[in-house]
């Protein structure tokens, strides 16, 4: 007797793996991930560059700053493009409010890039005012601020008889290296520590994995919801449940779709491992022989920590997937159209989005009572507990207890959902109320 659940698993798996969407995400996801990381770091260092000449009107009430400013700007990188100075300073005067307003109007109509007011009392406690069409050109602002501050400081130093060089020598700050203390012994026999860079590398890996977990649970749980809905609206479900029990059908679906995700992860992990293991010869092909020490540290960290992190990733992905997919399957079962299901699914999506947003705040206080409590809320655990494992490894017993707790919840959710699912897939018309759902669980 062939196994009928296997037939369901096979169908769910093959229709998805053979689809263009699967092949596309298999290649596009890593590209997008790398692209996002690269783009965000590129944007972070990208400056407000321009090729056009930008005019900057300066009203210098002190009469001492403008000339020195012009000299400093000519040497400053922020104001250059390919070695050419692209900012032009004009000294102007304005005494009345109308005259000031006229400059502001010229800024608004793009005749001026910006307009700067340096008050008389700038050497004591006056504030420089900078007007531009947007106040988000932070690099220009901070460069101007630094230049004017230096001029003002130099004057203060001169008045009080100190040399600037002496003062900055005395005022320089100390070096500061952060280490995370780990359990186990270090190489030199002391406590095992991890540098900020290594922590960063590990966290980066953890972040990517949390993001993948979140994304795949949402995407594929929704996919299950739609497939339940399709079977319901085409009424093929009547034929299926006259051959196989509803809970077997549901189980087959979950296992089939979960296998699709695991297949994709497995391919990525294999490629990732091959890449990391052979990174040096690979880079050698591109003529890069010596790697910076930081890079070697990062690769070393990824090598050392990925086995553990990946193990937890797979555990939390699978239980998270089963928890949410069962619930989304129920949404599909109690609705009669795609639009209705999308709306009904919103609270479930919130259950996933909330821990994902909280994570960015909680990772700074991983051992606070709040973090610990939230990470044990079963619906949040797949994201928050996994986050804690990445940031500050909780004791093993706590992790095991959490896994047990989440598994128990999954079991409970599946039992209740299975009953609602069984009734729902054969019901048409109006969406049931919560009270009716409760009744369905008792059939």
């Amino acid at each position, binding site marked *: 007797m062939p196994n*009928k659940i296997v037939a369901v698993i096979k169908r769910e798996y093959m229709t998805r793996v053979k689809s263009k969407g699967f092949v596309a995400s298999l290649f596009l996801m890593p590209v997008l991930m790398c692209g996002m990381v690269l783009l965000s770091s590129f944007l972070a260092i990208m400056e407000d560059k321009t090729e056009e000449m930008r005019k900057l009107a300066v009203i210098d009430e002190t009469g001492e700053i403008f000339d020195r400013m012009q000299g400093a700007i000519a040497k400053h990188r922020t104001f250059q493009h390919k070695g050419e100075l692209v900012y032009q300073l004009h000294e102007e005067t304005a005494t009345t409010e109308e005259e000031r307003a006229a400059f502001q109007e010229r800024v608004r109509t793009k005749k001026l890039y910006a307009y700067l007011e340096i008050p008389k009392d700038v050497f004591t406690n006056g504030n420089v005012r900078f007007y531009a069409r947007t106040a988000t050109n932070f690099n220009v602002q901070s460069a101007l601020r630094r230049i004017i501050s230096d001029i003002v400081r130099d004057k203060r130093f001169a008045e009080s008889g100190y040399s600037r060089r002496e003062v900055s020598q005395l005022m320089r700050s100390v070096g500061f290296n952060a280490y995370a203390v780990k359990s186990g012994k270090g190489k030199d026999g002391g406590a095992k520590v991890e540098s900020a860079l290594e922590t960063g590398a590990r966290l980066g890996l953890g972040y990517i994995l949390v993001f993948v977990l979140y994304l795949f649970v949402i995407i594929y749980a929704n996919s299950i919801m739609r497939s339940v809905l399709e079977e319901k609206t085409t009424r093929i479900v009547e034929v299926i449940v006259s051959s196989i029990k509803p809970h077997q059908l549901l189980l087959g679906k979950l296992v089939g779709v979960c296998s699709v995700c695991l297949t994709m992860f497995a391919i990525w992990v294999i490629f990732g491992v091959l890449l990391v293991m052979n990174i040096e010869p690979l880079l050698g092909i591109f003529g890069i022989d010596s790697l910076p020490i930081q890079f070697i540290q990062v690769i070393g960290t990824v090598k050392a920590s990925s086995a553990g992190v990946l193990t937890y990733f797979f555990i939390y992905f699978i239980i998270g997937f089963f928890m949410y997919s069962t619930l989304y399957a129920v949404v599909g079962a109690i609705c009669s159209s795609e639009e209705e299901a999308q709306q009904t699914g919103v609270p479930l999506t919130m259950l996933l989005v909330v821990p994902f947003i909280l994570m960015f705040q909680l990772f700074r206080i991983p051992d606070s009572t709040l973090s610990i409590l939230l990470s044990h809320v079963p619906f949040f655990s797949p994201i928050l507990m996994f986050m804690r494992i990445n940031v500050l490894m909780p004791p093993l017993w706590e992790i095991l207890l959490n896994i047990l707790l989440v598994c128990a919840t999954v079991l409970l959710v599946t039992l209740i959902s299975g009953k609602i699912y069984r009734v729902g897939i054969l019901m048409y018309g109006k969406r049931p109320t919560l009270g009716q759902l409760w009744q369905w669980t008792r059939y």
Partner: protein
Amino acid sequence: MNLLQLENVHKKFGDFTAVSDISFSIEKGNVYGLLGPNGAGKTTTLRMIMDIIAPDAGSITFSGNRHVQDFLDQIGYLPEERGLYRKMKVRDVILFIAELKGLYKQQALGEIEKWLEKMQLSEWGNKRIDELSKGMAQKIQFITTVIHKPELIILDEPFSGLDPINMTLLKDLMLELREDGSTIIFSTHVMEQVEKLCDRICLIHQGEVLLEGELRAVKRGFGKNSVEIEYIGSLEPIRNSACIQGINDFGQYAEIKLKTPEDYRPFLQELVEKGVDVTRFELMEPTLHEIFVESVEAHGGTVQNAE
């Protein structure tokens, strides 16, 4: 022995009684017609047989066994609302359902080719369901119903939405399946098909059985109180005859319902006496349509959509 037996089956949905005290049995090798107007409880009855919904009371036995769910693989079921996975290929869909019905892949593949050929759909085997016409999709769904050679075939409104050619094709297939030893139960409100196909019928209305039995016996029970006449001129002289219960006049031809079967003699006499120029006079067996309408109306119902 009866292949399928229903005894005093009840089903309520909330306050609405869908099926009330239905009993009937189907012999092996028979074609059984479940008739009734829309909303009579036909689909509910079939779903209870399929164990999709459970009856509130009564028993359903398959080959004398009360656990119908253990025999589901020996039953083929065509639901009233049709549908298949739209994005799947024809062969894959049939294979999937065949496997759900307990067939091994190799076994199923051979059957699929046989059936596709029979339905003249072999070239369409690798197309997706949503590329097929509605009629073709219906044929594919019929294949999924019978691919595992079920002992009992349950068809819920199999003729709805079919064109005349496909209706004839389906009727021939059903008779062929009966020749091969299958037992068929189907629901319909199209009476023509029933007369040509059924060995036995069960007429239900508002969840209750109005009539049940062998088709010929049911007809005989109603008696020959229908007369068909062809005439020249007008029927006006006999329109108020004491023998007539109803008249359906087509101009040169009329179907006349008499009050009792014995009335045909005085009625014929009256025709001659009143000088109606009759060219043909024939006593008719009641059509199933008449029996259907009459039984339902006798129970205070009206028949809608009884094509």
